[in-house]
């Protein structure tokens, strides 16, 4: 009652609008009372703090929703409101029945439209709804999916009318999104409000996902064995990529892109480092027309050539079936009650918002005569926004009418529902916001369906906006269905936040993933190298400097000039102020090649591409690294930078520790480490060559060299003396016990290469093995002492040539590995 109102102080519903929280009398609706009672214990500042915790967890989990058309901040953090949407179990059970019926209906409808088309022939459905639809895939006609099942996951957008009843706004059937976000919302909210979650007896979501997973696994056509189910994503640039990676991980399916799959002899295979693995089921998040460039859209780079034909041959299950987008059309809504009687012999349980397909003269007239407000939608998709007639100016409205007249079948009129409102925390106050609920149904087995006891509640960006869309701002809520009885507590998450991987051998690494991990290793190492190099320079730049410090700074600047990171003029005369600015740019300018900020941006893309291969903890480290690497928005000062660089060194050490301790020693880890070793070797050779040109015997050169190569301590322990060229180069080049030395990188690489998948028919050693052998020989059989002596006398040529040949060797290993394992350019066993 009013006394408990202080859980959400200042919240008022809008008169005449159905509010989810407040009933007609001024009390909470019963289903909210438990939660409101719990929340009443918090002060407003407690709630704000919890909201902040949730926000931070979302950021750490990397939950994003990519917004099309915005370049700078492509990833928008997912927004989750602290107060869940509460739903009555009886009401939910009613919806459950309606949703299951709806999925069965849509499945049967697809079966007819892609088969005998009896409904069209008998006049139950106008032919224009089929033939006029761009979503009708002709090549998929007569393609009967195994078991005749088209749908495995179905999503329905629901809205509540002012009278309290629910109605359907839209169906999502080709590649429904949102289930993964609903799960993520639940995981976060159940951690932020653990007591409330327990006390309210909220139904768990895991059973739904177990059903979805089992349904997909059991759909496999190949008998027995361990079916391979993959999740096909368009890639990291897709708006819901986060969800693809998250679901793949949660369900235990490999996340693949079109390029990972290939069709041979009408079967789909996953390209892995060890060859081709047959794929049984594809849970796709690629839209219908993009799935096969051979038979569908020829300009698609997201699909798999030959997929339609493989499905036609019955060799692979595509979930949902290709062409399933056909029944998403809002133009179908007015026909569904009749179709339900026709196909199921049942009355349709869930009504939809009143709709009129303008392709029928009668319906078009009825739409214009209908009382209340109307929204015009496109019948068959397309990018056009819905048209709210009362919001158009006279001229715009005339233009719209002309388009309608020219092609009436392309338009659907729909009654505009006055959406119900739910309380949302704006950061300052509780406000009523219009909401839409997306619910999900999974097919668990033949005639067994699971409805998610929850869903994705989305609210609009302002109290008056009629459009609820993540593309337009707004936010989401967890959806709590209060269980009537004891709560089912199974979870697909393994204890301790452990990442689910495919249980099979390391062989299952897709080439693309190996490629990305290799570059992850390279960029992580490149970042570490640059951070150390810049830190050494900044340390000597600021504050009081000793005489040695001054000389070492000059040497470092000279080396940076040789490395091409500073312009030539700094080698000749020194303008301190200009130097400081140039060095700052080398750290924080995002568009300067090789700057720390630029490397961090590259890392961001690569980590996004291998998101499903990284544990949550590793992901958190990367999020922190990106945060720490912001350099105060690119405005960090000379005084701030050294401290920030120190932080980055620590973040990087945390990643190395995680990699060392937590990654399985499979091929994925090996490619990560190969990248790291090669990059380390290449960076060190470059630095040594720069040192050689700067002044090979000068301690002011050798000391920073050892520091950047992280070998100062090792050097001191071994030689107890001032630095010399011969001993320094020996430590960095040939000392196999120094994990920073070239010899160590070479040896580690040899070990890795030995474990990589091999060609069954190739004789002798692989080219990269031969190259490594040559590099090893160069390192070990060169007379370093003599070369160092000559370099000390000003003749650096021998030593420089040696380093150059070593660098060339490492570089060609990179090329050889790329050809063999990533681009499959070398003809391998097939």
């Amino acid at each position, binding site marked *: 009652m009013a006394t408990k109102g202080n859980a959400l102080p200042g919240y008022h519903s809008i008169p005449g609008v159905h509010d989810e929280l407040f009933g007609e009398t001024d009390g909470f609706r019963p289903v909210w009372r438990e939660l409101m009672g719990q929340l009443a214990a918090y002060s407003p500042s407690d709630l704000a703090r919890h909201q902040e915790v949730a926000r931070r967890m979302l950021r750490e989990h990397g939950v994003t929703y990519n917004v099309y058309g915005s370049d700078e901040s492509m990833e928008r953090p997912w927004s989750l409101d602290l107060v869940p949407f509460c739903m009555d179990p009886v009401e939910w059970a009613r919806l459950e029945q309606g949703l299951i019926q709806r999925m069965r209906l849509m499945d049967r409808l697809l079966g007819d439209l892609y088969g005998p088309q009896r409904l069209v022939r*008998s*006049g139950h459905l106008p032919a224009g709804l089929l*033939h006029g639809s761009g979503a009708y895939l002709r090549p998929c006609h007569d393609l009967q999916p195994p078991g005749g099942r088209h749908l495995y996951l179905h999503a329905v957008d629901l809205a509540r009318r002012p009278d309290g009843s629910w109605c359907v706004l839209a169906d999502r059937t080709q590649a429904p999104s949102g289930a993964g976000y609903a799960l993520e919302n639940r995981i976060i909210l159940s951690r932020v409000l653990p007591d409330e979650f327990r006390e309210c007896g909220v139904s768990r979501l895991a059973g739904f996902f177990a059903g979805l997973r089992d349904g997909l696994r059991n759909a496999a056509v190949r008998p027995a064995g361990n079916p391979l189910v993959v999740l096909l994503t368009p890639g990291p640039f897709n708006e819901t990529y986060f969800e693809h990676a998250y679901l793949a991980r949660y369900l235990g399916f490999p996340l693949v892109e079109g390029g990972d799959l290939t069709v*041979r002899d009408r079967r789909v295979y996953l390209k892995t480092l060890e060859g081709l693995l047959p794929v049984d089921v594809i849970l796709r998040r690629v839209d219908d027309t993009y799935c096969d460039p051979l038979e569908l859209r020829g300009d698609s780079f997201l699909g798999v*050539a030959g997929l339609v034909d493989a499905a036609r041959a019955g060799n692979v299950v595509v979930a949902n079936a290709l062409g399933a987008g056909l029944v998403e059309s809002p133009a179908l809504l007015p026909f569904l009650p009749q179709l339900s009687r026709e196909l199921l012999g049942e009355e349709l349980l869930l009504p939809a918002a009143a709709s009129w397909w303008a392709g029928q003269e009668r319906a078009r007239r009825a739409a214009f005569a209908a009382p209340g407000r109307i929204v015009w939608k496109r019948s068959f998709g397309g990018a056009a926004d819905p048209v709210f007639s009362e919001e158009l100016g006279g001229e715009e409205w005339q233009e719209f009418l002309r388009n309608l007249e020219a*092609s009436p079948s392309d338009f659907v009129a729909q009654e505009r529902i006055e959406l119900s409102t739910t309380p949302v925390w704006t950061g300052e106050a509780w406000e009523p916001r219009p909401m839409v609920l997306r619910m999900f149904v999974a097919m668990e087995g033949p005639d067994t369906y699971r409805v998610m006891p929850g869903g994705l509640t989305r609210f609009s960006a302002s109290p008056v906006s009629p459009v609820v869309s993540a593309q337009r701002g707004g936010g989401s809520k967890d959806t709590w269905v209060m269980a009537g009885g004891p709560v089912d507590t199974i979870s697909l998450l393994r204890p301790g936040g452990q990442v689910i991987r495919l249980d099979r051998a390391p062989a299952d690494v897709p080439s693309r993933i190996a490629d990305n991990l290799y570059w992850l290793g390279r960029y992580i190492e490149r970042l570490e190298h640059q951070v150390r190099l810049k830190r050494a320079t900044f340390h000597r730049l600021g504050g009081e400097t000793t005489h040695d410090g001054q000389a070492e700074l000059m040497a470092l600047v000279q080396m940076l000039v040789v490395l091409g990171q500073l312009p030539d003029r700094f080698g000749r005369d020194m303008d301190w102020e200009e130097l400081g600015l140039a060095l700052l740019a080398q750290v924080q300018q995002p568009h300067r090649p090789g700057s720390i900020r630029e490397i961090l941006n590259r890392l961001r893309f690569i980590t996004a591409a291998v998101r499903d291969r990284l544990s949550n903890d590793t992901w958190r480290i990367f999020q922190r690294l990106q945060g720490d690497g912001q350099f105060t928005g690119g405005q960090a000062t000379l005084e701030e930078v050294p401290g920030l660089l120190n932080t980055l060194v620590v973040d990087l050490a945390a990643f190395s520790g995680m990699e060392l301790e937590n990654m399985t020693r499979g091929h994925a880890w090996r490619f990560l480490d190969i990248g790291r070793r090669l990059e380390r070797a290449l960076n060190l050779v470059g630095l040594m060559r720069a040192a050689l040109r700067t002044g090979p015997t000068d301690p002011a050169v050798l000391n920073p060299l050892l520091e950047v190569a992280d070998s100062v301590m090792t050097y001191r322990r071994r030689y107890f003396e001032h630095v010399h060229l011969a001993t320094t180069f020996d430590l960095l080049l040939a000392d196999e016990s120094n994990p920073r030395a070239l010899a160590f990188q070479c040896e580690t690489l040899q070990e890795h290469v030995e474990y990589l998948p091999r060609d069954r028919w190739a004789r002798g050693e692989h080219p990269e093995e031969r190259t490594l052998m040559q590099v090893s020989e160069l390192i070990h059989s060169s007379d370093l002492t003599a070369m160092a002596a000559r370099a000390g006398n000003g003749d650096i040529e021998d030593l420089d040539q040696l380093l150059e040949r070593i660098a060339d060797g490492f570089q060609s290993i990179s090329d050889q590995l790329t050809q063999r394992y990533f681009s*499959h350019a070398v003809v391998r066993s*097939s």
Partner: protein
Amino acid sequence: MLYRITHVTRYAYQTEVSVAHHLLHLRPREMSWQRVESFDLIVQPEPAVISRRIDYFGNHTHVLTIEGGHRQLEVVAGSRIRIQPPPRVEAGATPPWESVVEGCRQDGWSAAVEAAEFRFDSPFVRRNREVADYARTSFVAGRPLVVAVRELNARIFEDFQFDARATSVATPLEEVFEERRGVCQDFAHLMIACLRSLGLPARYVSGYLETVPPKGQARLVGADASHAWVSVWCPGVGWLDFDPTNNLEPAERHITVAWGRDFGDVSPIRGVLVGSGDHALTVSVDVEPLAHSEPDASAKSVSTQSQSQASW
């Protein structure tokens, strides 16, 4: 008429292609006035898999998969076709065009509704008001369908210029309409857009046209090309062909290979391959008459150039 047709397509790839899939529409259709006496397909290098299928529109398709590195591909399709003039209609006796539009709007299922498949937008042909306005000049109220279509066919022939360099497969219809030039594929798409914008069903036909050398010159082998024209639905009669590129009503010198909503449904060879780098394409078509009848001298011999047929 009896023809021997040889359609040779050669690709030369800059870098080695490891795996390639190709979808072909090369085997001519059987029709009451067109008989395929023989057809053979020779592909080099030899495909690992060839599968044959009748597609949604009733066309013959082949899907080839070539595995193993290759730097070139040659597809030779050879056929012997016997063809008679299709039945003629009395243009003035055909129904008024508006009644055809009305008939296709019916919700029930009938032959006319089946034709309605070809009344809507397709990937290469979007209906629009400007094109409809252009067409309407010929479609005056109450005019018999074929009289109006025949006039439209002639107007496109007069108003648009054949120019093999003006367009490519990717040139949008709006640009063709604006620039008033293009090739047979563009004119076919344009005429289809005109008809569909008025509500009439129209489909795209791909095939070959026997070209007649100028008087006194020998026939050049391989100088022919793929051709494209338009088919219009006429109730009670069926589909009637029109060739706006030549202002002709196809008879026994037009050999039909396949039809669909537009070029995208019937492109002769469409391929997807794994490999990098560019490719060069050469196509030669030879339509050799084996048993002559008197040629129809009104066709322009230059006007059958088609464009690159592959979409990559």
